């Protein structure tokens, strides 16, 4: 068995690590490199960097941050935000990323998923989905950090993305993000059960037990954590221990 991955998510604006609520109202937390190192040393299984403004301004300021991180952080780095083309993805990979997450540009032009999977392999192509719950009990795909609606159904879009070659899905609940009220387990389960590739649940972790819920009830393959780590409300070793006590398989860290 492969354990559930505990992933530290770092949202970036300019040169700063930031955190918002519902992906908005961003607040500066500090130097991303300092936090990234701390999470690596604590035993994070992976790191995710998301440039929160790149898709808004059509640029990406992450390269320098990623280049620095890749110097001495030896776990997988997923990087997203503002990736619009195969060339953009190549630049990020050259900076030291292992996987590239795409949201807005894939919605605008789904073929980008196929192109990236073809050039770099599916293992490199992470489809990032921002999901907002609708009155009807469905979820709609949003882009640009939860600002723009797309009319797409989340589960259908996830299926389509996997058909096109996405090797993994980063699923962020805009409703839960930054609220500390727990994950949207129904959302995660709906997507995880619909696709053959791993799903990373993101948004809402208030307490280590929320991770247990999203793995058990949501069938998450990996859990992304931000706020809970940034504000030191818990640590990766504590969360790992909670997982182990609950019978959830996680990496053994010496």
């Amino acid at each position, binding site marked *: 068995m*492969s354990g559930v*991955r505990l992933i530290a998510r770092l949202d970036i604006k300019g040169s700063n690590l930031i955190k918002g609520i519902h992906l908005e109202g961003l607040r500066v937390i500090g130097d991303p490199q300092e936090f990234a190192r701390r999470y690596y040393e604590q035993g994070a299984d992976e790191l995710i960097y998301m440039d929160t403004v790149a898709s808004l301004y059509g640029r990406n300021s992450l390269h320098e941050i990623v280049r620095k991180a890749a110097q001495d952080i030896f776990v997988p780095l997923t990087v997203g935000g503002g990736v619009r083309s195969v060339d953009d993805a190549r630049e990020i990979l050259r900076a030291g990323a292992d996987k590239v997450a795409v949201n807005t540009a894939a919605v605008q032009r789904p073929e980008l998923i196929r192109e990236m999977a073809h050039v770099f*392999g599916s*293992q490199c192509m992470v489809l990032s989905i921002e999901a907002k719950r609708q009155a009807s009990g469905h979820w709609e795909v949003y882009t640009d950090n939860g600002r723009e609606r797309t009319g797409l159904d989340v589960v259908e879009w996830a299926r389509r993305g996997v058909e096109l070659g996405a090797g993994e899905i980063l699923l962020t609940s805009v409703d839960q993000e930054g609220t500390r009220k727990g994950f949207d387990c129904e959302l995660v389960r709906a997507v995880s059960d619909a696709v*053959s590739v791993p799903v990373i649940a993101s948004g809402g972790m208030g307490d280590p037990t929320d991770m247990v819920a999203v793995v058990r009830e949501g069938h998450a*393959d990996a859990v992304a954590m931000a706020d809970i780590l940034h504000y030191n409300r818990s640590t990766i070793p504590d969360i790992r221990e909670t997982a182990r006590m609950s019978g959830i398989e996680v990496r053994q860290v010496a």
Partner: protein
Amino acid sequence: MTVDVAIIDYGIGNLFSVRRSFEHCGASVVVSDDPEVLLAAPRLVLPGVGAFADGMRGLIERGLDKAVVEFAGSGKPLLGICLGMQMLASVSEEFGEHKGLDIIPGRVAPIPKTTLEGKPHKIPHIGWSGLLLPDGLSSWQGTVLEELASGDAVYLVHSYAVQPADEAHRLADCDYGGRRISAAIRKGNVHGLQFHPEKSGSIGLHIIRNFLS
């Protein structure tokens, strides 16, 4: 400066992390697509991600397939990582049948889409898995896994796995869906790792140091 290790650049994937991890372990690294440079190095690394056929084409177009085979025959340490490990095998079933380097006889076959109990599970296999001693192997002493404990976890991302023709070439397995899949293979001076030592934290760096020593 004398070179400790050469990394083969055959136009596929990102060599930054592999290079950086070896440098972090104190090695002087050269990245090259020149067979002469590669053959002159004391140690050789064949990295790679992506599709098998693309990888083999990348090697063949540069005349590097023969160089890797020649290096393997020299007795100097050769390390294949991920796709680099798979290309050490004889043949792959990924998108049709494709010939490999045939340095360690075996087939590259898809990971079954269901667990041993018949339940669907996620492919690609992405994540950290514990390294296990295969049946018939009592220790990793004298291999790149020396001083590791059974269960030490490494990072894998793959949809295909190597099935060595000779069980004696299995160096480490991992468990996925109740089945043993090959995580590392070894034949004499040639090691293949399905996982990414450059992305496996301190365990991975330990393996890299073993390869360098």
